[in-house]
């Protein structure tokens, strides 16, 4: 059997990292939008 374990581990680590990074990017973008919405809604009610 060919010794290909390094490639196998690399593929699983890279794919897992991509999925996690994308999920984190969604969380970070959504948090920014919610913070901006909060700020605007507060400034709207203070008027």
């Amino acid at each position: 059997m060919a010794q290909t374990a390094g490639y196998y581990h690399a593929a699983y680590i890279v794919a897992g990292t991509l999925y996690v990074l994308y999920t984190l990017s969604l969380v970070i973008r959504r948090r920014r939008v919610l913070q901006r919405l909060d700020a605007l809604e507060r400034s709207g009610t203070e008027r």
Partner: protein
Amino acid sequence: MTTPITGRPSTSSAGGADANTAGDGARSRPALIDGWIVAAALAVIAAYVRIIWFTPPEATQGLAQKIYYLHLPAALNAYLAFGVVFVTSIVYLWLHEERADLVAESSAEVGLLFTTVVLITGPIWAKPIWGTWWTWDARLTLTLFLWFIYAGYLLLRGAIVEPSLRARYSAVLGILGALLIPFIHMSVYLFRTLHPMPIVLKPDRPSLPPEMLHTLIFSFLAFVLVYLALVRARYRLSLERVRLAALEGSLEGGR
């Protein structure tokens, strides 16, 4: 005329816990990670465990063959994602329903993620098996072309400010891009190519032993759940961006 998303889109309409509590302006922050993301993460962990510890390696390729359980589900989910872009873009052009445009945008972004995984895991498998990271054969080149089309789709969306114009142009590109998918699937039959022939999605029975086939189906279903969870989260972000743009517009109009 475009059907706008009116009112305040509740996060529960996109499946999350309701963000807004009734009462004197008291407002709780919606959860940034919901049950769907957690369920998808658990499903992928279960798939990884099954692949690593409970599925035998292939006799000649060794452990590199197990890359297949990541590569094929990512490819099929990319097809699914761009298929959804195709359908929702047609719905947008037909009914001018803004939510269809937002679903198309969300699905295109997640589809691009899956295509990126395909384009990275493929060469990692190819290096030990073919002896090269990349070859310009039909399947690989068309998949790279698909990646560029949907990267262009997202760039186009970022470049056009006017919402209805952005939705119309990107719907046309989204439909044209998805027309490439049947051609990519058939490319191994139409051209002489290094890429293996389909061993599951083919007219006769899958040519995989049952334990490998079951692991592949398990992994595919886990990544379908990942697709649904990510599109749902991305769609919710789009709804909140629409709400933010509307609020900014109304505040500027009031000045």
